[in-house]
């Protein structure tokens, strides 16, 4: 029997605490497989953020540091800047973490052209704390802190992080992908690979925004959740490459 698919060695052999059907798990797998395939697990340091993925340091088969809420890009900067250049450093952040409290850190990491890879899991809500509004929550979306649905007048409009960061000269590679079906999952994998390659080639800041689900706090079952990603999120958060500048510091 030929192995068509098996659990990545980039994942430790352990159960996760994620809710049934939460696509955090798929994204973990994609990152793990990429690192495994690039054969860099032994030289990778991951930075777990605060959110449902806070425990990701128990799941990835590489060195991991856990960062304060929103500060993963700063922590990753500290790690990347002091270690030999062959080290691969990535952050794994939710949208509350990255786009709300961590906005300053992500913008500046991108502007600095920090040679790290950011896996940005956008599920349009705060998962871990029980379903509050995120900066990425859609208009009209009901959450614990927008019980009547997000209103533009009071709560403002969702932030398209990839588009925003793409305006920064320091950012080299930015793509938005989704996990709502097999084809998109495979595309997501390619993007993640490209991001890590960008780092390996020392081309600067790379980020993949992955549209993800939160069945629990959306109040939908896992399958409905994927539909919601496709029908509600993708239109507001168009998929695609937002930056592929392959910037090398020297050239500018």
């Amino acid at each position, binding site marked *: 029997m030929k192995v068509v698919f098996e659990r990545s060695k980039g994942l430790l052999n352990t159960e996760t605490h994620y809710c049934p059907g939460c696509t955090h798990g798929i994204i973990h797998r994609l990152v793990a497989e990429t690192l495994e395939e690039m054969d860099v697990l*032994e030289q990778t*340091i991951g930075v777990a953020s605060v959110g449902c993925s806070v425990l990701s340091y*128990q799941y990835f088969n590489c060195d*991991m*540091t856990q960062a*304060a809420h929103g500060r993963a890009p700063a922590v990753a900067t*500290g790690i990347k800047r002091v*270690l030999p250049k062959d080290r691969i450093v990535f952050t794994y952040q939710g949208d509350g973490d990255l786009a709300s409290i961590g906005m300053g850190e992500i913008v500046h990491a991108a502007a600095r052209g920090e040679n790290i890879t950011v896996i940005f899991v956008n599920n349009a809500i705060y998962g871990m704390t029980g379903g509050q509004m995120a900066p990425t929550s859609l208009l009209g979306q009901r959450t614990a802190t927008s019980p009547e649905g997000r209103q533009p007048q009071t709560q403002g409009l969702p932030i398209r992080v990839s588009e925003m960061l793409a305006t920064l000269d320091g950012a080299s590679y930015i793509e938005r992908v989704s996990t709502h079906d097999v084809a998109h999952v495979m595309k997501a994998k390619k993007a993640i690979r490209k991001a890590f390659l960008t780092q390996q080639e020392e081309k600067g800041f790379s980020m993949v925004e992955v549209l993800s689900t939160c069945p629990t706090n959306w109040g939908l079952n896992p399958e409905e959740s994927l539909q919601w990603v496709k029908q509600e999120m993708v239109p507001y958060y168009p998929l695609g490459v937002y930056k592929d500048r392959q910037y090398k510091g020297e050239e500018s």
Partner: protein
Amino acid sequence: MGKVLMKGNEVIGEAAILAGCHYFFGYPITPQSELVAYMAKRLPEVKGLFLQAESEVSAINMVYGASSAGVRVMTSSSSPGFSLKQEGISYLAAANLPAVIVNIARGGPGLGNIQPSQSDYFQVTKGGGHGDYYTPVLAPSTLQEIVDLTQEAFRIADQYRTPVILLGDGMLGQMMEPVEFLKTDNQIVIDKEWATTGTKGDGSPKTITSLDLNDVKLEERNCKLQEKYKLIRRNEIKVDTYLMEDAEMAIVAYGTVARICQSAIDRVRDEGMKIGLIRPISLWPYPTDVIASYCERLNKIVVVEMSAGQMVEDVRLSVEGKVPISFYGRTGGIIPTVEELVEQFQMHGNGVLR
């Protein structure tokens, strides 16, 4: 290399480099900005890295990252910026990460001003961030002492895996004095097998975290921290005394104001008053026992601070009612003059309480 004339802020930087610290993440704020500028110039010369962070919050978290990767690393700020680092310091303490954090304190609260002040004492010795942690705090009072204590700070940080605070103020940061840089053992950097540098060649993944969802586990972490603190309390108390051999009245003061006190004591001694100085150098752990050991002989303690009265609580905790304690403080960035201290000491020497 002989004596050189430097600003206190620059002395911190040079001493850190001497201690093998080649990484600095900072953010400008008066009156510590010279340190940031110094590191920006010097670190590239030693093939180190200076990075200006986007904020104090970011700087302390870069330090968290660099420390978790195993290097000697420093950041610095002044009062308002230091407040912003509190979450990060709590994280460093909880994750057992060594780092040296400098506070060149200024007048507060709020935006306050940029003059020297000692009103962050509580923040650095007790409160600050959330949770049960302490950070060793070293408070130099001369520039030469900065050279020594900066290096000590790195030694303590690495030895106990803890953040260490170097507390100065605008006067120490911006004044110049001749200093000499000497090699010491503190420059020896120990290997950090716990660092997250990639698993290459050394087995299974390592993690740095301060999370323990399980309360029993978190209590264990806290117990280990408390044991560490006990050890530090036992080993790392630093205190200086001046003319305490026959003193009947003791001044307790640290840092900048201790210098002024010393000048004032000299003058009052000339008048025949038996007065001496106890100068805590480590503010945490506090030299409680040293102070207590003088209680028998003293009939008065005067605590002098550039604050509304913070360290005085630690003196009271040391003395436990055995000697009457008075407090004299100036706030707002005002440094008391020798004259006014002389007057205070004379007054208290006559048994008059404030």
